[in-house]
Protein backbone atom coordinates (compact mmCIF):
# COMPACT_ATOMS: atom_id res chain seq x y z
CA UNK A 1 0.00 0.00 0.00
CA UNK A 2 2.81 2.43 0.84
CA UNK A 3 4.31 1.98 -2.63
CA UNK A 4 1.21 3.52 -4.19
CA UNK A 5 1.95 6.93 -2.64
CA UNK A 6 4.53 9.50 -3.86
CA UNK A 7 8.03 9.45 -2.45
CA UNK A 8 7.37 12.39 -0.17
CA UNK A 9 4.19 10.79 1.11
CA UNK A 10 6.04 7.54 1.66
CA UNK A 11 8.74 9.33 3.62
CA UNK A 12 6.15 11.29 5.66
CA UNK A 13 4.16 8.16 6.43
CA UNK A 14 7.34 6.25 7.27
CA UNK A 15 8.46 9.02 9.61
CA UNK A 16 5.03 9.12 11.25
CA UNK A 17 4.97 5.39 11.83
CA UNK A 18 8.49 5.50 13.24
CA UNK A 19 7.48 8.32 15.50
CA UNK A 20 4.37 6.44 16.59
CA UNK A 21 6.46 3.36 17.18
CA UNK A 22 9.01 5.36 19.14
CA UNK A 23 6.29 7.08 21.17
CA UNK A 24 4.65 3.71 21.80
CA UNK A 25 8.00 2.31 22.93
CA UNK A 26 8.50 5.31 25.19
CA UNK A 27 5.00 4.94 26.61
CA UNK A 28 5.52 1.21 27.15
CA UNK A 29 8.92 1.81 28.70
CA UNK A 30 7.53 4.59 30.90
CA UNK A 31 4.58 2.44 31.93
CA UNK A 32 6.89 -0.48 32.66
CA UNK A 33 9.14 1.79 34.64
CA UNK A 34 6.18 3.28 36.48
CA UNK A 35 4.79 -0.15 37.21
CA UNK A 36 8.18 -1.41 38.33
CA UNK A 37 8.55 1.63 40.57
CA UNK A 38 5.06 1.12 41.95
CA UNK A 39 5.80 -2.56 42.64
CA UNK A 40 9.10 -1.58 44.23
CA UNK A 41 7.51 1.05 46.49
CA UNK A 42 4.54 -1.20 47.31
CA UNK A 43 6.82 -4.11 48.18
CA UNK A 44 9.07 -1.87 50.24
CA UNK A 45 6.10 -0.52 52.21
CA UNK A 46 4.69 -4.00 52.60
CA UNK A 47 8.03 -5.28 53.87
CA UNK A 48 8.20 -2.35 56.29
CA UNK A 49 4.66 -3.04 57.52
CA UNK A 50 5.34 -6.78 57.83
CA UNK A 51 8.54 -6.09 59.71
CA UNK A 52 6.75 -3.69 62.07
CA UNK A 53 3.96 -6.22 62.62
CA UNK A 54 6.49 -8.96 63.23
CA UNK A 55 8.42 -6.77 65.67
CA UNK A 56 5.18 -5.86 67.47
CA UNK A 57 4.21 -9.52 67.66
CA UNK A 58 7.62 -10.46 69.00
CA UNK A 59 7.38 -7.65 71.55
CA UNK A 60 3.85 -8.75 72.57
CA UNK A 61 5.02 -12.36 72.84
CA UNK A 62 7.95 -11.23 74.98
CA UNK A 63 5.68 -9.19 77.27
CA UNK A 64 3.22 -12.10 77.49
CA UNK A 65 6.07 -14.51 78.28
CA UNK A 66 7.39 -12.17 80.98
CA UNK A 67 3.90 -11.83 82.47
CA UNK A 68 3.43 -15.57 82.42
CA UNK A 69 6.80 -16.07 84.05
CA UNK A 70 5.97 -13.52 86.78
CA UNK A 71 2.59 -15.19 87.26
CA UNK A 72 4.24 -18.58 87.61
CA UNK A 73 6.73 -17.21 90.12
CA UNK A 74 3.89 -15.64 92.14
CA UNK A 75 1.93 -18.88 91.98
CA UNK A 76 4.96 -20.82 93.18
CA UNK A 77 5.53 -18.42 96.07
CA UNK A 78 1.81 -18.51 96.86
CA UNK A 79 1.94 -22.29 97.06
CA UNK A 80 5.15 -22.46 99.08
CA UNK A 81 4.69 -19.52 101.43
CA UNK A 82 0.94 -19.17 101.81
CA UNK A 83 -0.79 -22.47 101.17
CA UNK A 84 1.54 -25.28 102.20
CA UNK A 85 2.54 -23.85 105.60
CA UNK A 86 -1.10 -23.09 106.44
CA UNK A 87 -2.76 -26.25 105.22
CA UNK A 88 -2.69 -27.65 108.78
CA UNK A 89 -4.40 -24.47 110.03
CA UNK A 90 -7.15 -24.81 107.41
CA UNK A 91 -7.65 -28.49 108.18
CA UNK A 92 -7.59 -27.84 111.92
CA UNK A 93 -10.22 -25.09 111.56
CA UNK A 94 -12.68 -27.34 109.76
CA UNK A 95 -11.93 -30.32 111.98
CA UNK A 96 -12.61 -28.18 115.05
CA UNK A 97 -15.92 -27.03 113.60
CA UNK A 98 -16.88 -30.67 113.02
CA UNK A 99 -16.42 -31.29 116.78
CA UNK A 100 -19.59 -29.23 117.30
CA UNK A 101 -21.56 -32.41 116.69
CA UNK A 102 -20.03 -34.06 119.74
CA UNK A 103 -20.27 -30.85 121.78
CA UNK A 104 -24.02 -30.62 121.27
CA UNK A 105 -25.23 -33.25 123.69
CA UNK A 106 -28.67 -32.08 124.74
CA UNK A 107 -31.84 -31.62 122.71
CA UNK A 108 -32.54 -28.23 124.25
CA UNK A 109 -29.48 -26.09 124.69
CA UNK A 110 -29.35 -23.59 127.54
CA UNK A 111 -28.65 -19.97 126.59
CA UNK A 112 -25.18 -20.15 128.13
CA UNK A 113 -24.41 -23.35 126.17
CA UNK A 114 -25.48 -21.65 122.95
CA UNK A 115 -23.25 -18.67 123.70
CA UNK A 116 -20.32 -20.93 124.57
CA UNK A 117 -20.72 -22.91 121.33
CA UNK A 118 -20.89 -19.80 119.18
CA UNK A 119 -17.94 -18.28 121.03
CA UNK A 120 -16.03 -21.46 120.21
CA UNK A 121 -16.69 -21.23 116.44
CA UNK A 122 -15.95 -17.50 116.38
CA UNK A 123 -12.67 -18.09 118.21
CA UNK A 124 -11.72 -20.74 115.64
CA UNK A 125 -12.50 -18.31 112.83
CA UNK A 126 -10.39 -15.64 114.51
CA UNK A 127 -7.46 -18.06 114.81
CA UNK A 128 -7.67 -18.93 111.11
CA UNK A 129 -7.92 -15.27 110.17
CA UNK A 130 -4.75 -14.43 112.06
CA UNK A 131 -2.76 -17.38 110.75
CA UNK A 132 -3.99 -17.63 107.16
CA UNK A 133 -6.67 -15.23 105.90
CA UNK A 134 -4.77 -12.04 106.75
CA UNK A 135 -1.82 -13.28 104.67
CA UNK A 136 -4.08 -13.35 101.62
CA UNK A 137 -4.78 -9.64 101.95
CA UNK A 138 -1.22 -8.90 100.88
CA UNK A 139 -1.30 -11.48 98.09
CA UNK A 140 -4.61 -10.86 96.40
CA UNK A 141 -7.36 -8.67 97.95
CA UNK A 142 -10.05 -10.28 95.79
CA UNK A 143 -9.14 -13.77 96.96
CA UNK A 144 -8.94 -12.45 100.55
CA UNK A 145 -12.47 -11.03 100.33
CA UNK A 146 -13.89 -14.15 98.72
CA UNK A 147 -12.45 -16.43 101.40
CA UNK A 148 -13.36 -14.05 104.22
CA UNK A 149 -16.94 -13.88 102.92
CA UNK A 150 -17.07 -17.66 102.69
CA UNK A 151 -15.97 -18.03 106.35
CA UNK A 152 -18.21 -15.22 107.60
CA UNK A 153 -21.20 -16.79 105.86
CA UNK A 154 -20.41 -20.14 107.48
CA UNK A 155 -19.89 -18.74 110.98
CA UNK A 156 -22.97 -16.48 110.71
CA UNK A 157 -25.05 -19.44 109.58
CA UNK A 158 -23.85 -21.67 112.45
CA UNK A 159 -24.41 -18.83 114.94
CA UNK A 160 -27.96 -18.23 113.73
CA UNK A 161 -28.73 -21.97 113.73
CA UNK A 162 -27.49 -22.46 117.29
CA UNK A 163 -28.89 -19.25 118.83
CA UNK A 164 -32.09 -18.59 116.92
CA UNK A 165 -33.51 -21.66 115.32
CA UNK A 166 -34.23 -23.86 118.33
CA UNK A 167 -33.63 -27.03 116.34
CA UNK A 168 -32.82 -30.43 117.82
CA UNK A 169 -29.20 -30.57 116.73
CA UNK A 170 -28.63 -33.92 118.47
CA UNK A 171 -30.76 -35.38 115.65
CA UNK A 172 -28.06 -36.40 113.17
CA UNK A 173 -29.91 -35.56 109.92
CA UNK A 174 -30.87 -32.15 111.32
CA UNK A 175 -27.31 -31.44 112.44
CA UNK A 176 -26.00 -32.59 109.05
CA UNK A 177 -28.47 -30.43 107.15
CA UNK A 178 -28.04 -27.29 109.25
CA UNK A 179 -24.35 -27.43 110.19
CA UNK A 180 -22.37 -30.43 108.90
CA UNK A 181 -23.14 -29.93 105.22
CA UNK A 182 -22.45 -26.20 105.46
CA UNK A 183 -19.02 -26.84 106.95
CA UNK A 184 -18.30 -29.25 104.07
CA UNK A 185 -19.54 -26.76 101.44
CA UNK A 186 -17.41 -24.01 102.94
CA UNK A 187 -14.33 -26.22 102.89
CA UNK A 188 -14.93 -27.25 99.28
CA UNK A 189 -15.48 -23.64 98.25
CA UNK A 190 -12.30 -22.50 100.00
CA UNK A 191 -10.25 -25.24 98.34
CA UNK A 192 -11.81 -24.44 94.97
CA UNK A 193 -10.99 -20.74 95.29
CA UNK A 194 -7.39 -21.43 96.29
CA UNK A 195 -7.02 -24.06 93.54
CA UNK A 196 -8.37 -21.70 90.90
CA UNK A 197 -6.07 -18.84 91.90
CA UNK A 198 -3.80 -18.24 88.88
CA UNK A 199 -1.18 -16.03 90.44
CA UNK A 200 -2.69 -12.80 89.14
CA UNK A 201 -2.64 -9.67 91.28
Amino acid at each position, binding site marked *: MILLFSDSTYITNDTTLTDVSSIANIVIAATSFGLAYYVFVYQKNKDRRDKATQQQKEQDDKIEATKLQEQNIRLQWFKELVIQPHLPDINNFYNQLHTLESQITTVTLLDQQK*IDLTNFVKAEQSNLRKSFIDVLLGVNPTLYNEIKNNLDALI*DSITTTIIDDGLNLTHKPTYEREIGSKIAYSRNDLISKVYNYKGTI
Partner: protein
Amino acid sequence: MSNIKTINLQDYRTPGSRVFTGRDRGINVRNASKIDQLEAESDKVIIKIPEDIGSINPSFLEEFLNNVVNKLQPEAFFTKFEFENNGRYKIVNDLQEAVERILREETALVH
Protein backbone atom coordinates in the same frame (compact mmCIF):
# COMPACT_ATOMS: atom_id res chain seq x y z
CA MET B 1 -21.35 18.30 131.32
CA SER B 2 -20.19 16.09 128.43
CA ASN B 3 -22.39 15.46 125.43
CA ILE B 4 -23.45 11.78 125.45
CA LYS B 5 -25.41 10.02 122.72
CA THR B 6 -26.97 6.56 122.90
CA ILE B 7 -27.62 3.88 120.31
CA ASN B 8 -29.93 1.12 121.46
CA LEU B 9 -29.43 -1.96 119.28
CA GLN B 10 -32.91 -3.07 120.35
CA ASP B 11 -34.23 -0.54 117.83
CA TYR B 12 -32.41 -2.26 114.96
CA ARG B 13 -32.81 -5.96 115.64
CA THR B 14 -34.66 -8.27 113.31
CA PRO B 15 -37.94 -9.29 114.99
CA GLY B 16 -37.58 -12.67 116.66
CA SER B 17 -33.82 -12.83 116.22
CA ARG B 18 -31.24 -12.81 118.97
CA VAL B 19 -28.24 -12.32 116.73
CA PHE B 20 -26.69 -9.52 114.71
CA THR B 21 -24.79 -11.04 111.79
CA GLY B 22 -23.66 -10.12 108.30
CA ARG B 23 -21.93 -7.24 106.60
CA ASP B 24 -25.07 -6.01 104.84
CA ARG B 25 -26.91 -5.82 108.15
CA GLY B 26 -23.96 -3.95 109.63
CA ILE B 27 -24.13 -1.34 106.88
CA ASN B 28 -27.90 -1.01 107.30
CA VAL B 29 -27.65 -0.45 111.05
CA ARG B 30 -24.70 1.94 110.59
CA ASN B 31 -26.82 4.08 108.28
CA ALA B 32 -30.04 3.78 110.26
CA SER B 33 -28.44 4.56 113.62
CA LYS B 34 -26.35 7.42 112.14
CA ILE B 35 -23.46 6.26 114.29
CA ASP B 36 -20.89 8.25 112.27
CA GLN B 37 -22.84 11.47 112.75
CA LEU B 38 -23.46 10.79 116.47
CA GLU B 39 -19.75 10.19 116.97
CA ALA B 40 -18.89 13.51 115.35
CA GLU B 41 -21.43 15.42 117.44
CA SER B 42 -20.74 13.95 120.87
CA ASP B 43 -18.07 13.37 123.48
CA LYS B 44 -19.24 9.86 124.27
CA VAL B 45 -21.41 7.26 122.56
CA ILE B 46 -23.10 4.49 124.51
CA ILE B 47 -24.22 1.40 122.60
CA LYS B 48 -26.85 -0.56 124.48
CA ILE B 49 -26.98 -4.29 123.81
CA PRO B 50 -30.32 -5.96 124.57
CA GLU B 51 -29.97 -8.42 127.44
CA ASP B 52 -31.32 -11.40 125.53
CA ILE B 53 -28.90 -11.06 122.62
CA GLY B 54 -26.94 -14.27 121.96
CA SER B 55 -24.29 -13.03 119.54
CA ILE B 56 -23.13 -9.97 117.66
CA ASN B 57 -20.77 -11.37 115.08
CA PRO B 58 -17.60 -9.68 113.81
CA SER B 59 -19.04 -9.67 110.27
CA PHE B 60 -21.76 -7.29 111.52
CA LEU B 61 -19.52 -5.21 113.78
CA GLU B 62 -16.88 -4.78 111.09
CA GLU B 63 -19.25 -2.78 108.90
CA PHE B 64 -21.22 -1.18 111.71
CA LEU B 65 -18.10 0.32 113.29
CA ASN B 66 -15.88 0.62 110.22
CA ASN B 67 -15.91 4.41 109.83
CA VAL B 68 -15.67 5.34 113.50
CA VAL B 69 -12.81 2.93 114.18
CA ASN B 70 -10.89 4.16 111.14
CA LYS B 71 -11.49 7.75 112.14
CA LEU B 72 -10.68 7.47 115.84
CA GLN B 73 -8.21 4.57 115.84
CA PRO B 74 -8.46 1.98 118.64
CA GLU B 75 -7.42 3.96 121.71
CA ALA B 76 -9.76 6.89 121.10
CA PHE B 77 -12.49 4.55 119.91
CA PHE B 78 -12.46 2.49 123.10
CA THR B 79 -12.41 5.72 125.16
CA LYS B 80 -15.27 7.33 123.31
CA PHE B 81 -17.49 4.28 122.81
CA GLU B 82 -19.02 2.42 125.70
CA PHE B 83 -20.94 -0.83 125.34
CA GLU B 84 -23.71 -1.38 127.87
CA ASN B 85 -23.69 -5.14 127.95
CA ASN B 86 -25.64 -6.66 130.87
CA GLY B 87 -26.83 -9.97 129.41
CA ARG B 88 -25.11 -13.37 129.29
CA TYR B 89 -23.49 -12.60 125.96
CA LYS B 90 -20.30 -10.53 126.27
CA ILE B 91 -19.25 -8.51 123.27
CA VAL B 92 -15.57 -8.02 124.22
CA ASN B 93 -13.99 -10.73 122.02
CA ASP B 94 -16.18 -10.06 118.99
CA LEU B 95 -15.54 -6.33 119.30
CA GLN B 96 -11.80 -6.89 119.51
CA GLU B 97 -11.93 -9.17 116.48
CA ALA B 98 -13.91 -6.60 114.46
CA VAL B 99 -11.56 -3.75 115.36
CA GLU B 100 -8.54 -5.86 114.41
CA ARG B 101 -10.11 -6.71 111.06
CA ILE B 102 -10.95 -3.06 110.32
CA LEU B 103 -7.44 -1.90 111.15
CA ARG B 104 -5.81 -4.78 109.28
CA GLU B 105 -7.69 -3.93 106.10
CA GLU B 106 -7.09 -0.22 106.51
CA THR B 107 -3.35 -0.82 106.92
CA ALA B 108 -3.28 -3.05 103.83
CA LEU B 109 -5.11 -0.41 101.77
CA VAL B 110 -2.76 2.38 102.87
CA HIS B 111 0.34 0.36 102.00
